[in-house]
């Protein structure tokens, strides 16, 4: 089958690439806009509140208005900030968050880049955002921001280890790091999905992923009650918007990744449900994970910094290693 990324290099092919990338950007921006709206609504309902309901019908334009406000705000840079780094950090945070989306396959023929090391690509690029956060914390020349940045560095580096190791089991089962192949190997129905043989890996992955996202109960880098806003305390206007955007694009990315690695991607759970297109299944599973993230936020308190490190190194890492051993034994004995 002819796929567009197999085309020879030409202006025409490059133009097609650019168009597809722009379309994806639009999808992601719309997702972020309505994920924020959805989050505020869901948490509002969980707390006996209405959530946004004034701007536009049902408050649907709330985020649009918020973003418009951020864009027209004065661009302030603190006098003693390191200007070059201060300006660099938001872009450095956002760019990798969008680049990782290239390897996500939404359907059988819908990846933008069919990389053999898709998962590694994801992990390697998303690590750059950590650097951006440390830079932001340092460049702001603010003590709260610095503490937030340092916490963030410690946290994200610690949790990347179990995050990657938890996926090793999946790679062993599917014999691939190509995200498209991983989904193809889960073909069949829900009993073929990785979530069941890899239940330990799944649990470790989800916990580590929530932590990578800096979300409750792991939102220490921006812990409001301690650090006011953490690393982005000095940012305002569109620079702040970029950090926000990066955060929500990562939610999008992690939800996609969880769907692909553990929940069978675009596959339907039952043979009777095969008539529903794969893209819808993908969107459904994706939405389920996004909802769970919001749900956790409305439910749990925050961990302390030392407890957070303890959890990563003393609980998640051994579990992930045990999972690799168990998977290896399983493959050896059960075939």
């Amino acid at each position: 089958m002819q796929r567009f990324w197999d085309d020879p290099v030409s202006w025409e092919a490059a133009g097609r690439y650019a168009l597809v990338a722009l379309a994806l950007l639009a999808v992601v921006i719309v997702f972020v806009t309505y994920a924020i709206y959805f989050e505020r609504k869901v948490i509002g309902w969980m707390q006996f509140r209405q959530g946004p309901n004034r701007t536009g019908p049902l408050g649907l334009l709330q985020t649009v208005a918020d973003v418009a406000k951020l864009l027209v705000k004065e661009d302030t840079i603190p006098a003693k900030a390191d200007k070059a780094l201060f300006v660099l950090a938001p872009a450095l945070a956002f760019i990798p968050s969008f680049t990782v989306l290239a390897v996500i396959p939404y359907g059988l023929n819908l990846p933008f880049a069919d990389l053999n090391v898709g998962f590694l690509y994801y992990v390697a690029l998303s690590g750059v955002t950590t650097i951006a956060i440390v830079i932001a914390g340092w460049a702001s020349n603010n003590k709260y921001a610095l503490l937030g940045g340092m916490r963030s560095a410690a946290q994200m580096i610690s949790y990347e280890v179990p995050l990657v190791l938890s996926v090793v089991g999946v790679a062993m089962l599917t014999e691939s790091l190509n995200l498209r192949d991983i989904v193809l190997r889960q073909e069949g129905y829900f009993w073929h999905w990785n979530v069941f043989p890899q239940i330990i890996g799944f649990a470790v992955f989800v916990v580590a992923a929530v932590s990578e996202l800096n979300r409750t109960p792991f939102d220490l880098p921006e812990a409001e009650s301690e650090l006011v806003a953490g690393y982005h305390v000095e940012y305002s206007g569109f620079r702040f918007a970029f950090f926000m955007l990066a955060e929500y694009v990562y939610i999008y990315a992690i939800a996609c990744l969880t769907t692909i690695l553990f929940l069978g991607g675009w596959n339907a759970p039952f043979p009777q449900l095969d008539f529903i297109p794969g893209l819808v299944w993908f969107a459904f599973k994706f939405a389920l994970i996004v909802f769970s993230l919001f749900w956790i936020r409305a439910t749990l308190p925050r961990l302390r910094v030392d407890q957070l490190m303890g959890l990563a190194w003393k609980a998640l890492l051994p579990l992930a290693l045990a999972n690799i051993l168990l998977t290896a034994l399983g493959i050896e004995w059960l075939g």
Partner: protein
Amino acid sequence: MGVIRTEELLLNVGPQHPSTHGVFRIIVKLDGEIITEATPVMGYLHRGTEKLAESLNYTQIIPYTDRMDYVSAMTNNYVLVHAVEKMMGLTVPERAEFLRLIVMELQRIASHLVWWGTYLLDIGALSPFLYAFNDRERILQLFNELCGARLTYNYMRVGGVKWDAPEGWIDKVKDFVKSMYGKLDDYHALVSGNEIFLSRIKGVGAYDAETAIAYGLSGANLRSTGVKWDLRKNEPYSLYDRFEFDVPVGRNGDCYDRYVVRMEEIRQSLRILEQALEQFPPEGETMGKVPRVIRPPAGEIYVRIESPRGEIGCYIVSTGKAEPYRLKFRRPSFVNLQILPKLLVGESMTNLVTILGGIDIVLGEVDC
């Protein structure tokens, strides 16, 4: 290369910081994230209540007490009018005394709910705050019906209360008490067993009974160490000797014990309310016989009662005039706060918030 040079970080927390519950400021020295020294700075909300009172007559002072501990205005009202009544030897009609006791216990529940919600917010859980304020709202509605105000009630007067309970009000309070029991169970189910929450507060900010007494702590801060000291029991005022209730105490004096003690106090307040509402006299005066101008005889008096935050005291020196010569409030928030620098040394920034929240201060009362 030698050892990398490190230095302490001087961090200014507050007065505009979300977790200082107002305009409180702490200057902390940090070694990494560990606090090596903490210096509280107070006074940003000082309004000179005590000095102002010297040029006001006693009825005019009552609204000022509303604004001290604005989360628990009713108990503040009471300590002032009670002190004046004791000085003048006035008797308060039974119905008025019942109303006072009912509003004070409702206020204790409302105040503890605010504490519960904001404490969980400090620890990072968002939802309990909204739940707590939902229930507190119902109490405020009841107060609103009773005296037309939601926060600063100006409800009590020397010799009685300003407003009688409107028709059906007692039944509404009964309904509230009944449903609040269920809510309290819900809250325990939702929060009290949460692993993250427990790991955040167990063993944090602990001190023993001797230290607590040496620092003059009172209220839940004292009882969490196991000292059974509640002025409602130990020096009964109002009608508290008529009702059955327990004084919950902790054992370890840590944030967890303070949490348990306060939550249990809500239940005990509900028990008191249940009994008080049953015995509430169906009719009677709400104002006793009080001279038109209140002039306590020359002399001095110190009266103390149990506010939600601890022992609130009122010391009056009178020269027989309509204004006090000197008025002094012993504010539990202010006294309880004194132990903070001692507790903070060696703790992390995160525990600063946990410990400060656990002491339960109201800045209006700290600065007075």
